[in-house]
Protein backbone atom coordinates (compact mmCIF):
# COMPACT_ATOMS: atom_id res chain seq x y z
CA UNK A 1 0.00 0.00 0.00
CA UNK A 2 1.30 3.49 -0.85
CA UNK A 3 2.51 5.51 2.07
CA UNK A 4 1.52 9.16 2.22
CA UNK A 5 2.42 12.04 4.49
CA UNK A 6 -0.31 13.80 6.44
CA UNK A 7 0.86 17.14 5.01
CA UNK A 8 -0.15 15.95 1.52
CA UNK A 9 -3.76 16.26 2.62
CA UNK A 10 -3.50 19.96 3.45
CA UNK A 11 -3.63 21.77 0.11
CA UNK A 12 -5.87 19.12 -1.46
CA UNK A 13 -8.44 19.28 1.31
CA UNK A 14 -8.56 23.07 1.17
CA UNK A 15 -9.31 22.83 -2.55
CA UNK A 16 -12.11 20.34 -1.87
CA UNK A 17 -13.57 22.49 0.88
CA UNK A 18 -13.56 25.57 -1.34
CA UNK A 19 -15.08 23.63 -4.24
CA UNK A 20 -17.88 22.51 -1.92
CA UNK A 21 -18.72 26.13 -1.18
CA UNK A 22 -16.96 26.62 2.15
CA UNK A 23 -15.60 30.14 2.68
CA UNK A 24 -12.05 28.95 3.38
CA UNK A 25 -8.89 31.01 2.94
CA UNK A 26 -5.26 30.18 3.66
CA UNK A 27 -2.48 32.34 5.05
CA UNK A 28 1.04 31.03 4.52
CA UNK A 29 4.52 32.15 5.58
CA UNK A 30 6.70 31.31 2.59
CA UNK A 31 6.45 27.53 2.91
CA UNK A 32 3.59 26.78 0.53
CA UNK A 33 5.50 24.13 -1.41
CA UNK A 34 6.51 22.26 1.73
CA UNK A 35 3.14 22.50 3.44
CA UNK A 36 1.28 21.87 0.13
CA UNK A 37 -0.85 25.00 0.49
CA UNK A 38 0.61 25.82 -2.95
CA UNK A 39 -1.98 23.39 -4.33
CA UNK A 40 -4.72 25.58 -2.90
CA UNK A 41 -2.95 28.76 -4.04
CA UNK A 42 -2.94 27.46 -7.59
CA UNK A 43 -6.63 26.56 -7.57
CA UNK A 44 -7.85 29.57 -5.59
CA UNK A 45 -5.26 32.37 -5.91
CA UNK A 46 -7.68 34.98 -4.57
CA UNK A 47 -8.09 33.05 -1.33
CA UNK A 48 -4.42 32.50 -0.64
CA UNK A 49 -2.28 35.09 1.14
CA UNK A 50 1.46 34.75 1.54
CA UNK A 51 2.81 37.02 4.27
CA UNK A 52 6.42 36.11 3.65
CA UNK A 53 8.63 34.97 6.49
CA UNK A 54 6.51 36.54 9.20
CA UNK A 55 4.63 34.01 11.33
CA UNK A 56 3.22 36.50 13.84
CA UNK A 57 1.67 38.42 10.98
CA UNK A 58 0.42 35.15 9.48
CA UNK A 59 -1.65 34.44 12.59
CA UNK A 60 -2.78 38.06 12.96
CA UNK A 61 -3.86 38.31 9.32
CA UNK A 62 -5.73 35.01 9.60
CA UNK A 63 -7.44 36.36 12.72
CA UNK A 64 -8.60 39.42 10.79
CA UNK A 65 -9.90 37.26 7.96
CA UNK A 66 -11.81 35.23 10.54
CA UNK A 67 -13.26 38.43 12.03
CA UNK A 68 -14.44 39.23 8.50
CA UNK A 69 -16.25 35.89 8.38
CA UNK A 70 -13.74 33.60 6.71
CA UNK A 71 -12.57 30.18 7.85
CA UNK A 72 -8.85 30.89 7.90
CA UNK A 73 -6.24 28.13 7.75
CA UNK A 74 -2.59 28.89 8.52
CA UNK A 75 0.50 27.08 7.34
CA UNK A 76 4.23 27.25 8.08
CA UNK A 77 6.11 24.56 10.03
CA UNK A 78 4.85 23.43 13.43
CA UNK A 79 7.79 24.95 15.28
CA UNK A 80 7.19 28.42 13.82
CA UNK A 81 3.43 28.20 13.25
CA UNK A 82 2.79 27.54 16.96
CA UNK A 83 5.75 28.56 19.13
CA UNK A 84 6.92 31.58 17.17
CA UNK A 85 3.43 33.07 17.19
CA UNK A 86 2.20 31.78 20.55
CA UNK A 87 1.06 35.12 21.92
CA UNK A 88 -0.87 35.82 18.72
CA UNK A 89 -2.53 32.40 18.97
CA UNK A 90 -3.35 32.90 22.63
CA UNK A 91 -4.42 36.52 22.81
CA UNK A 92 -5.88 37.12 19.38
CA UNK A 93 -7.17 33.76 18.13
CA UNK A 94 -8.16 31.77 21.21
CA UNK A 95 -9.19 34.66 23.47
CA UNK A 96 -11.77 35.75 20.89
CA UNK A 97 -12.58 32.15 19.76
CA UNK A 98 -11.91 33.01 16.13
CA UNK A 99 -12.29 30.60 13.22
CA UNK A 100 -8.57 30.20 12.72
CA UNK A 101 -7.40 26.68 11.96
CA UNK A 102 -3.69 26.11 12.50
CA UNK A 103 -2.42 23.27 10.37
CA UNK A 104 1.34 23.69 10.21
CA UNK A 105 3.33 20.76 8.90
CA UNK A 106 6.73 19.24 9.79
CA UNK A 107 5.83 18.40 13.37
CA UNK A 108 7.87 15.95 15.43
CA UNK A 109 11.26 14.34 15.02
CA UNK A 110 10.34 12.69 11.73
CA UNK A 111 11.23 16.00 10.08
CA UNK A 112 14.63 14.31 10.06
CA UNK A 113 17.84 15.90 8.77
CA UNK A 114 16.88 19.54 9.46
CA UNK A 115 17.60 18.76 13.10
CA UNK A 116 16.46 19.94 16.49
CA UNK A 117 15.65 23.55 15.58
CA UNK A 118 13.01 22.31 13.15
CA UNK A 119 11.68 19.28 15.03
CA UNK A 120 8.68 20.55 17.00
CA UNK A 121 8.02 18.29 19.98
CA UNK A 122 6.32 20.76 22.30
CA UNK A 123 3.39 21.81 20.09
CA UNK A 124 0.75 19.57 21.66
CA UNK A 125 1.75 20.91 25.06
CA UNK A 126 1.53 24.53 23.90
CA UNK A 127 -1.75 24.11 22.07
CA UNK A 128 -3.71 21.93 24.47
CA UNK A 129 -3.39 24.30 27.42
CA UNK A 130 -5.14 27.10 25.52
CA UNK A 131 -8.81 27.50 26.46
CA UNK A 132 -11.05 26.82 23.47
CA UNK A 133 -8.33 25.25 21.33
CA UNK A 134 -9.14 21.82 19.90
CA UNK A 135 -6.17 19.56 19.09
CA UNK A 136 -6.25 16.86 16.43
CA UNK A 137 -3.37 14.51 15.58
CA UNK A 138 -4.10 12.54 12.42
CA UNK A 139 -2.42 9.14 12.08
CA UNK A 140 -2.45 8.94 8.30
CA UNK A 141 -3.40 10.79 5.13
CA UNK A 142 -7.06 9.84 5.40
CA UNK A 143 -7.25 10.99 9.01
CA UNK A 144 -5.52 14.22 8.04
CA UNK A 145 -8.16 14.95 5.43
CA UNK A 146 -10.85 14.16 7.97
CA UNK A 147 -9.20 16.35 10.63
CA UNK A 148 -8.92 19.31 8.28
CA UNK A 149 -12.55 18.92 7.24
CA UNK A 150 -13.67 18.66 10.85
CA UNK A 151 -11.69 21.80 11.72
CA UNK A 152 -13.20 23.70 8.80
CA UNK A 153 -16.76 22.77 9.68
CA UNK A 154 -16.58 23.27 13.44
CA UNK A 155 -16.55 26.86 14.74
CA UNK A 156 -13.58 28.10 16.74
CA UNK A 157 -9.83 27.55 16.87
CA UNK A 158 -8.21 24.24 15.94
CA UNK A 159 -4.72 22.83 15.84
CA UNK A 160 -4.23 20.04 13.30
CA UNK A 161 -0.82 18.42 13.67
CA UNK A 162 0.61 17.49 10.28
CA UNK A 163 3.90 15.83 9.41
CA UNK A 164 6.44 15.30 6.69
CA UNK A 165 6.99 11.57 6.98
CA UNK A 166 5.15 9.15 4.67
CA UNK A 167 2.91 6.95 6.79
CA UNK A 168 1.10 3.68 6.12
CA UNK A 169 -2.67 3.81 5.77
CA UNK A 170 -4.51 3.21 9.04
CA UNK A 171 -8.00 4.52 8.34
CA UNK A 172 -10.23 3.70 5.34
CA UNK A 173 -10.76 6.05 2.43
CA UNK A 174 -13.55 8.52 3.19
CA UNK A 175 -12.85 8.22 6.94
CA UNK A 176 -14.69 10.83 9.00
CA UNK A 177 -13.24 12.05 12.26
CA UNK A 178 -15.46 12.97 15.18
CA UNK A 179 -14.39 15.62 17.64
CA UNK A 180 -13.56 14.08 21.00
CA UNK A 181 -13.58 10.50 19.77
CA UNK A 182 -10.79 7.94 20.05
CA UNK A 183 -10.75 4.97 17.71
CA UNK A 184 -10.19 1.42 18.91
CA UNK A 185 -8.26 -0.04 15.99
CA UNK A 186 -7.58 -3.40 17.58
CA UNK A 187 -9.22 -4.93 20.61
CA UNK A 188 -7.15 -6.57 23.32
CA UNK A 189 -7.30 -7.52 26.98
CA UNK A 190 -3.81 -7.30 28.54
CA UNK A 191 -2.55 -3.81 27.74
CA UNK A 192 -3.82 -0.63 26.11
CA UNK A 193 -1.58 1.12 23.58
CA UNK A 194 -2.93 4.67 23.29
CA UNK A 195 -1.16 6.33 20.36
CA UNK A 196 -1.49 9.35 18.11
CA UNK A 197 -0.06 10.50 14.80
CA UNK A 198 3.04 8.75 13.54
CA UNK A 199 2.93 6.41 16.55
CA UNK A 200 -0.36 4.73 15.64
CA UNK A 201 1.31 2.60 12.97
CA UNK A 202 4.12 1.80 15.41
CA UNK A 203 1.59 0.75 18.04
CA UNK A 204 -0.18 -1.52 15.57
CA UNK A 205 3.17 -3.11 14.68
CA UNK A 206 3.95 -3.48 18.37
CA UNK A 207 0.59 -5.18 18.94
CA UNK A 208 1.52 -7.78 16.31
CA UNK A 209 4.82 -8.51 18.06
CA UNK A 210 3.13 -8.64 21.47
CA UNK A 211 0.57 -11.11 20.11
CA UNK A 212 3.42 -13.44 19.14
CA UNK A 213 4.52 -13.24 22.77
CA UNK A 214 1.04 -14.09 23.99
CA UNK A 215 0.16 -10.56 25.04
CA UNK A 216 -3.16 -9.18 23.85
CA UNK A 217 -2.83 -5.44 23.15
CA UNK A 218 -5.68 -3.02 22.53
CA UNK A 219 -4.65 -0.23 20.16
CA UNK A 220 -6.43 3.11 20.38
CA UNK A 221 -5.90 6.03 18.01
CA UNK A 222 -6.21 9.13 20.19
CA UNK A 223 -6.77 11.36 17.16
CA UNK A 224 -8.59 13.96 19.25
CA UNK A 225 -6.10 14.97 21.94
CA UNK A 226 -8.39 17.78 23.04
CA UNK A 227 -11.13 17.08 23.78
CA UNK A 228 -10.14 13.58 24.85
CA UNK A 229 -12.48 10.62 24.49
CA UNK A 230 -12.67 9.99 28.20
CA UNK A 231 -15.18 7.15 28.02
CA UNK A 232 -13.20 5.07 25.54
CA UNK A 233 -9.91 5.58 27.35
CA UNK A 234 -11.32 4.88 30.81
CA UNK A 235 -13.14 1.79 29.57
CA UNK A 236 -10.03 0.40 27.93
CA UNK A 237 -7.80 1.18 30.92
CA UNK A 238 -10.32 -0.44 33.27
CA UNK A 239 -10.44 -3.52 31.06
CA UNK A 240 -6.70 -4.02 30.55
CA UNK A 241 -5.32 -2.43 33.72
CA UNK A 242 -2.18 -1.27 31.90
CA UNK A 243 -1.69 1.65 29.52
CA UNK A 244 1.24 2.64 27.33
CA UNK A 245 0.89 6.05 25.66
CA UNK A 246 2.83 6.58 22.44
CA UNK A 247 3.48 10.00 20.92
CA UNK A 248 6.08 11.60 18.68
CA UNK A 249 6.29 14.53 21.09
CA UNK A 250 7.87 15.41 24.39
CA UNK A 251 6.67 13.16 27.20
CA UNK A 252 5.89 16.40 29.01
CA UNK A 253 2.40 17.86 28.70
CA UNK A 254 1.41 16.11 25.47
CA UNK A 255 -1.08 13.34 24.74
CA UNK A 256 0.46 10.94 27.26
CA UNK A 257 0.19 13.53 29.96
CA UNK A 258 -3.42 14.22 29.00
CA UNK A 259 -4.23 10.51 29.33
CA UNK A 260 -2.33 10.32 32.63
CA UNK A 261 -4.29 13.31 33.96
CA UNK A 262 -7.53 11.67 32.96
CA UNK A 263 -6.78 8.21 34.32
CA UNK A 264 -5.25 9.40 37.58
CA UNK A 265 -8.56 11.08 38.39
CA UNK A 266 -11.07 8.69 36.86
CA UNK A 267 -9.42 5.27 36.74
CA UNK A 268 -5.91 5.07 38.23
CA UNK A 269 -3.99 2.66 36.04
CA UNK A 270 -0.37 1.52 35.72
CA UNK A 271 1.15 3.49 32.86
CA UNK A 272 4.24 4.07 30.80
CA UNK A 273 4.68 7.00 28.46
CA UNK A 274 6.60 6.65 25.22
CA UNK A 275 7.84 9.96 23.85
CA UNK A 276 10.89 12.17 23.52
CA UNK A 277 12.32 12.33 27.01
CA UNK A 278 12.72 16.06 27.62
CA UNK A 279 15.51 16.64 25.12
CA UNK A 280 15.68 18.46 21.79
CA UNK A 281 15.75 16.58 18.51
CA UNK A 282 18.79 16.03 16.37
CA UNK A 283 19.67 15.52 12.70
CA UNK A 284 19.24 12.07 11.24
CA UNK A 285 17.11 9.92 9.03
CA UNK A 286 13.52 9.73 10.37
CA UNK A 287 13.65 5.93 10.77
CA UNK A 288 16.96 6.20 12.62
CA UNK A 289 15.56 8.91 14.84
CA UNK A 290 12.52 6.83 15.76
CA UNK A 291 14.92 4.23 17.19
CA UNK A 292 17.33 6.80 18.63
CA UNK A 293 14.56 8.49 20.63
CA UNK A 294 12.96 5.21 21.67
CA UNK A 295 9.79 5.61 19.65
CA UNK A 296 9.87 2.40 17.58
CA UNK A 297 7.50 -0.55 17.74
CA UNK A 298 10.18 -2.47 19.64
CA UNK A 299 10.32 0.26 22.27
CA UNK A 300 6.56 0.03 22.71
CA UNK A 301 6.82 -3.77 23.04
CA UNK A 302 9.51 -3.37 25.68
CA UNK A 303 7.47 -0.83 27.65
CA UNK A 304 4.36 -3.03 27.54
CA UNK A 305 6.31 -6.12 28.65
CA UNK A 306 7.89 -4.22 31.53
CA UNK A 307 4.55 -2.82 32.59
CA UNK A 308 3.09 -6.32 32.67
CA UNK A 309 6.12 -7.70 34.51
CA UNK A 310 6.91 -10.19 31.77
Amino acid at each position, binding site marked *: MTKRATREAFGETLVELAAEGNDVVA*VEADLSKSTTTATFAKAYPDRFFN*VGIAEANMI*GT*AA*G*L*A*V*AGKTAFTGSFAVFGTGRAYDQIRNTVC*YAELDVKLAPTHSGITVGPDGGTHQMIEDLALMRVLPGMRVLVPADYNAAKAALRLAAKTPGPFYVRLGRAALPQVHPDGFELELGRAYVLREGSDVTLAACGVMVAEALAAADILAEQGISAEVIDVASVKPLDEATLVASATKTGAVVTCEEHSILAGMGSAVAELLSEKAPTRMKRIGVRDVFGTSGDPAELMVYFGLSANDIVKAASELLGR
Partner: protein
Amino acid sequence: MTDANVSRVSTIEAKAQRMRADIVEMIGKAGSGHPGGSLSAADIVATLYFGVMKHDPANPKMADRDRFVLSKGHAAPVLYSALAEAGYFGREHLATLRQLGSILQGHPDSKKTPGVEVSTGSLGQGLSIANGIALGLRSDGNTTSRVYCLLGDGELQEGQVWEAAMFASHQKLDHVIAIVDNNNLQIDGTCTEVMDLGDVAEKFRAFGWNVLGADGHDVEQLLAAFATAKTAHGAPTVIVASTIKGKGVSFMEDRADWHGKAPSAEECVTAAGELACTLTEGN
Protein backbone atom coordinates in the same frame (compact mmCIF):
# COMPACT_ATOMS: atom_id res chain seq x y z
CA MET B 1 -15.20 76.72 7.79
CA THR B 2 -18.86 76.76 6.97
CA ASP B 3 -21.35 77.02 9.79
CA ALA B 4 -22.20 73.37 9.33
CA ASN B 5 -18.56 72.39 9.69
CA VAL B 6 -18.10 74.57 12.74
CA SER B 7 -21.07 72.87 14.31
CA ARG B 8 -19.75 69.43 13.35
CA VAL B 9 -16.35 70.16 14.85
CA SER B 10 -17.78 71.56 18.07
CA THR B 11 -20.08 68.55 18.43
CA ILE B 12 -17.11 66.21 18.18
CA GLU B 13 -15.08 68.33 20.56
CA ALA B 14 -17.88 68.16 23.09
CA LYS B 15 -18.04 64.37 22.69
CA ALA B 16 -14.29 64.13 23.25
CA GLN B 17 -14.51 66.25 26.38
CA ARG B 18 -17.36 64.13 27.69
CA MET B 19 -15.32 61.00 26.94
CA ARG B 20 -12.35 62.43 28.86
CA ALA B 21 -14.56 62.94 31.89
CA ASP B 22 -15.82 59.36 31.53
CA ILE B 23 -12.28 58.03 31.22
CA VAL B 24 -11.10 59.68 34.41
CA GLU B 25 -14.22 58.75 36.31
CA MET B 26 -14.30 55.10 35.24
CA ILE B 27 -10.60 54.50 35.87
CA GLY B 28 -10.87 56.31 39.21
CA LYS B 29 -13.77 54.10 40.21
CA ALA B 30 -12.05 50.94 38.97
CA GLY B 31 -8.92 51.81 40.93
CA SER B 32 -6.70 50.74 38.05
CA GLY B 33 -6.34 51.31 34.33
CA HIS B 34 -4.55 53.45 31.78
CA PRO B 35 -5.62 57.10 31.78
CA GLY B 36 -2.66 58.68 29.94
CA GLY B 37 -3.01 56.88 26.62
CA SER B 38 -6.80 56.94 26.80
CA LEU B 39 -6.85 60.71 27.17
CA SER B 40 -4.29 61.24 24.42
CA ALA B 41 -6.51 59.30 22.00
CA ALA B 42 -9.84 60.88 23.00
CA ASP B 43 -10.02 63.40 20.14
CA ILE B 44 -8.97 60.79 17.57
CA VAL B 45 -11.53 58.23 18.73
CA ALA B 46 -14.28 60.86 19.08
CA THR B 47 -13.56 62.08 15.54
CA LEU B 48 -13.77 58.53 14.22
CA TYR B 49 -16.99 57.53 16.00
CA PHE B 50 -18.82 60.86 15.72
CA GLY B 51 -17.45 62.36 12.52
CA VAL B 52 -15.88 59.77 10.24
CA MET B 53 -16.96 56.16 10.63
CA LYS B 54 -20.07 54.65 9.15
CA HIS B 55 -21.59 52.59 11.94
CA ASP B 56 -24.94 51.94 13.54
CA PRO B 57 -25.27 51.01 17.22
CA ALA B 58 -28.74 49.65 16.45
CA ASN B 59 -27.27 47.36 13.80
CA PRO B 60 -23.73 46.66 15.00
CA LYS B 61 -23.12 43.89 12.45
CA MET B 62 -24.23 46.00 9.44
CA ALA B 63 -22.23 44.59 6.53
CA ASP B 64 -21.03 47.89 5.07
CA ARG B 65 -19.98 49.45 8.38
CA ASP B 66 -16.49 50.74 8.91
CA ARG B 67 -14.40 48.77 11.40
CA PHE B 68 -12.26 50.03 14.25
CA VAL B 69 -9.36 48.10 15.77
CA LEU B 70 -7.88 49.50 18.98
CA SER B 71 -4.42 48.02 18.66
CA LYS B 72 -3.27 49.87 21.79
CA GLY B 73 -5.79 47.87 23.78
CA HIS B 74 -4.82 49.32 27.16
CA ALA B 75 -6.65 52.49 26.06
CA ALA B 76 -9.89 50.50 26.36
CA PRO B 77 -11.62 53.25 28.42
CA VAL B 78 -11.50 55.65 25.46
CA LEU B 79 -13.22 53.03 23.30
CA TYR B 80 -15.78 52.15 25.98
CA SER B 81 -16.69 55.80 26.52
CA ALA B 82 -17.17 56.28 22.77
CA LEU B 83 -19.27 53.13 22.46
CA ALA B 84 -21.45 54.13 25.42
CA GLU B 85 -21.80 57.65 24.05
CA ALA B 86 -22.78 56.21 20.67
CA GLY B 87 -25.33 53.92 22.31
CA TYR B 88 -23.84 50.44 21.93
CA PHE B 89 -24.59 49.84 25.61
CA GLY B 90 -25.93 51.83 28.53
CA ARG B 91 -23.74 54.38 30.26
CA GLU B 92 -24.33 52.60 33.56
CA HIS B 93 -21.85 49.95 32.44
CA LEU B 94 -18.99 52.46 32.54
CA ALA B 95 -19.00 52.30 36.32
CA THR B 96 -18.37 48.54 36.17
CA LEU B 97 -15.03 48.77 34.33
CA ARG B 98 -12.60 46.02 35.36
CA GLN B 99 -15.01 44.46 37.86
CA LEU B 100 -15.87 40.77 38.03
CA GLY B 101 -18.75 40.06 35.66
CA SER B 102 -18.47 43.38 33.81
CA ILE B 103 -18.92 43.60 30.06
CA LEU B 104 -16.03 46.09 30.19
CA GLN B 105 -12.84 44.10 30.64
CA GLY B 106 -9.45 45.61 31.42
CA HIS B 107 -8.63 45.26 27.74
CA PRO B 108 -11.12 45.08 24.83
CA ASP B 109 -12.99 41.79 24.53
CA SER B 110 -15.09 41.26 21.41
CA LYS B 111 -17.02 38.47 23.09
CA LYS B 112 -18.17 40.59 26.01
CA THR B 113 -18.61 44.15 24.76
CA PRO B 114 -21.13 45.21 22.11
CA GLY B 115 -19.39 47.25 19.43
CA VAL B 116 -15.89 45.92 20.10
CA GLU B 117 -14.85 44.34 16.79
CA VAL B 118 -11.58 42.77 17.91
CA SER B 119 -10.06 41.64 21.20
CA THR B 120 -6.75 43.38 21.80
CA GLY B 121 -4.37 44.01 24.64
CA SER B 122 -1.15 42.32 23.62
CA LEU B 123 0.55 45.14 21.73
CA GLY B 124 1.65 44.99 18.13
CA GLN B 125 -1.12 42.81 16.74
CA GLY B 126 -3.89 45.16 15.68
CA LEU B 127 -2.54 46.15 12.30
CA SER B 128 -2.25 42.51 11.20
CA ILE B 129 -5.86 41.98 12.24
CA ALA B 130 -7.00 45.16 10.48
CA ASN B 131 -5.26 43.94 7.32
CA GLY B 132 -6.99 40.58 7.56
CA ILE B 133 -10.37 42.25 7.95
CA ALA B 134 -9.66 44.48 4.94
CA LEU B 135 -8.62 41.46 2.86
CA GLY B 136 -11.79 39.65 3.84
CA LEU B 137 -13.99 42.63 3.00
CA ARG B 138 -12.24 43.10 -0.32
CA SER B 139 -12.65 39.44 -1.25
CA ASP B 140 -16.36 39.75 -0.46
CA GLY B 141 -16.66 42.65 -2.89
CA ASN B 142 -17.10 45.31 -0.21
CA THR B 143 -15.66 48.44 -1.82
CA THR B 144 -16.82 51.00 0.73
CA SER B 145 -15.90 49.95 4.26
CA ARG B 146 -12.70 51.23 5.81
CA VAL B 147 -10.74 49.55 8.55
CA TYR B 148 -9.32 52.03 11.07
CA CYS B 149 -6.52 50.91 13.35
CA LEU B 150 -5.26 53.02 16.26
CA LEU B 151 -1.67 52.31 17.27
CA GLY B 152 0.43 53.73 20.06
CA ASP B 153 3.85 55.08 19.20
CA GLY B 154 5.55 52.91 21.83
CA GLU B 155 3.71 49.98 20.25
CA LEU B 156 5.60 50.58 17.02
CA GLN B 157 8.58 48.98 18.75
CA GLU B 158 6.85 45.62 18.25
CA GLY B 159 8.27 43.91 15.15
CA GLN B 160 4.90 42.53 14.08
CA VAL B 161 3.71 46.07 13.31
CA TRP B 162 6.30 46.27 10.56
CA GLU B 163 5.49 42.80 9.25
CA ALA B 164 1.94 44.08 8.92
CA ALA B 165 3.03 47.42 7.46
CA MET B 166 4.94 45.57 4.74
CA PHE B 167 1.97 43.30 4.06
CA ALA B 168 -0.62 46.11 3.82
CA SER B 169 1.50 47.85 1.26
CA HIS B 170 2.22 44.64 -0.69
CA GLN B 171 -1.51 43.87 -0.80
CA LYS B 172 -2.39 47.48 -1.72
CA LEU B 173 -4.84 47.68 1.18
CA ASP B 174 -6.01 51.23 0.53
CA HIS B 175 -8.99 50.73 2.82
CA VAL B 176 -6.71 50.34 5.81
CA ILE B 177 -6.24 53.62 7.65
CA ALA B 178 -3.86 53.53 10.59
CA ILE B 179 -3.51 56.29 13.14
CA VAL B 180 -0.46 56.61 15.37
CA ASP B 181 -1.20 58.22 18.73
CA ASN B 182 2.21 59.86 18.80
CA ASN B 183 2.57 61.03 22.39
CA ASN B 184 6.24 60.05 22.78
CA LEU B 185 5.69 58.39 26.14
CA GLN B 186 5.75 54.78 27.22
CA ILE B 187 5.81 53.12 30.63
CA ASP B 188 9.53 53.47 31.26
CA GLY B 189 9.92 57.02 29.96
CA THR B 190 9.93 58.86 26.66
CA CYS B 191 10.02 56.73 23.53
CA THR B 192 13.11 58.66 22.54
CA GLU B 193 14.91 57.48 25.68
CA VAL B 194 13.57 53.94 25.89
CA MET B 195 13.83 52.91 22.23
CA ASP B 196 14.03 55.76 19.80
CA LEU B 197 11.56 55.27 16.95
CA GLY B 198 13.34 57.76 14.74
CA ASP B 199 11.19 59.38 12.10
CA VAL B 200 7.91 57.45 12.25
CA ALA B 201 6.53 59.14 9.13
CA GLU B 202 9.66 58.29 7.12
CA LYS B 203 9.54 54.70 8.31
CA PHE B 204 5.96 54.25 7.08
CA ARG B 205 6.81 56.04 3.85
CA ALA B 206 9.68 53.63 3.32
CA PHE B 207 7.21 50.77 3.80
CA GLY B 208 5.09 52.11 0.94
CA TRP B 209 2.38 53.94 2.90
CA ASN B 210 0.70 57.27 2.28
CA VAL B 211 1.66 59.35 5.29
CA LEU B 212 -0.38 62.21 6.69
CA GLY B 213 0.23 64.34 9.74
CA ALA B 214 -2.22 66.02 12.09
CA ASP B 215 -2.47 67.57 15.50
CA GLY B 216 -4.19 64.72 17.29
CA HIS B 217 -6.11 67.15 19.46
CA ASP B 218 -7.37 69.34 16.60
CA VAL B 219 -10.63 67.85 15.37
CA GLU B 220 -10.66 69.96 12.23
CA GLN B 221 -7.20 68.73 11.25
CA LEU B 222 -8.17 65.15 12.06
CA LEU B 223 -11.33 65.38 9.93
CA ALA B 224 -9.28 66.74 7.04
CA ALA B 225 -6.70 63.96 7.37
CA PHE B 226 -9.37 61.25 7.43
CA ALA B 227 -11.04 62.81 4.38
CA THR B 228 -7.72 62.67 2.52
CA ALA B 229 -7.07 59.11 3.72
CA LYS B 230 -10.39 57.98 2.25
CA THR B 231 -9.24 59.09 -1.19
CA ALA B 232 -6.19 56.79 -1.09
CA HIS B 233 -5.76 54.45 -3.99
CA GLY B 234 -3.38 51.51 -4.19
CA ALA B 235 -1.68 52.01 -0.82
CA PRO B 236 -2.63 52.12 2.85
CA THR B 237 -2.59 55.40 4.75
CA VAL B 238 -1.23 56.29 8.15
CA ILE B 239 -2.03 59.47 10.03
CA VAL B 240 0.76 60.31 12.42
CA ALA B 241 -1.13 62.29 15.03
CA SER B 242 0.87 64.46 17.42
CA THR B 243 -0.66 64.07 20.85
CA ILE B 244 -0.06 64.77 24.51
CA LYS B 245 -0.37 61.85 26.88
CA GLY B 246 -2.94 62.63 29.57
CA LYS B 247 -4.33 65.49 27.47
CA GLY B 248 -6.99 67.54 29.26
CA VAL B 249 -5.97 66.82 32.84
CA SER B 250 -3.20 69.19 33.87
CA PHE B 251 -1.44 66.94 36.34
CA MET B 252 -1.46 63.98 33.92
CA GLU B 253 -0.29 65.78 30.80
CA ASP B 254 2.99 64.59 29.35
CA ARG B 255 3.76 62.43 32.36
CA ALA B 256 4.82 58.82 31.79
CA ASP B 257 3.81 57.79 35.30
CA TRP B 258 0.14 58.31 34.37
CA HIS B 259 0.40 55.54 31.77
CA GLY B 260 -1.13 52.91 34.02
CA LYS B 261 -2.19 54.50 37.29
CA ALA B 262 -5.67 55.35 38.57
CA PRO B 263 -6.39 58.79 39.96
CA SER B 264 -7.44 59.04 43.60
CA ALA B 265 -10.94 60.27 44.50
CA GLU B 266 -9.52 63.72 45.13
CA GLU B 267 -7.65 63.74 41.83
CA CYS B 268 -10.85 62.66 40.06
CA VAL B 269 -12.63 65.71 41.44
CA THR B 270 -9.81 68.00 40.35
CA ALA B 271 -9.72 66.41 36.89
CA ALA B 272 -13.48 66.60 36.53
CA GLY B 273 -13.36 70.28 37.41
CA GLU B 274 -10.75 70.87 34.77
CA LEU B 275 -12.80 68.98 32.22
CA ALA B 276 -15.73 71.24 33.11
CA CYS B 277 -17.91 68.35 34.00
CA THR B 278 -19.23 67.07 37.27
CA LEU B 279 -18.68 63.45 38.17
CA THR B 280 -22.36 62.63 38.04
CA GLU B 281 -23.45 64.56 35.00
CA GLY B 282 -25.56 62.44 32.67
CA ASN B 283 -25.69 59.44 34.97
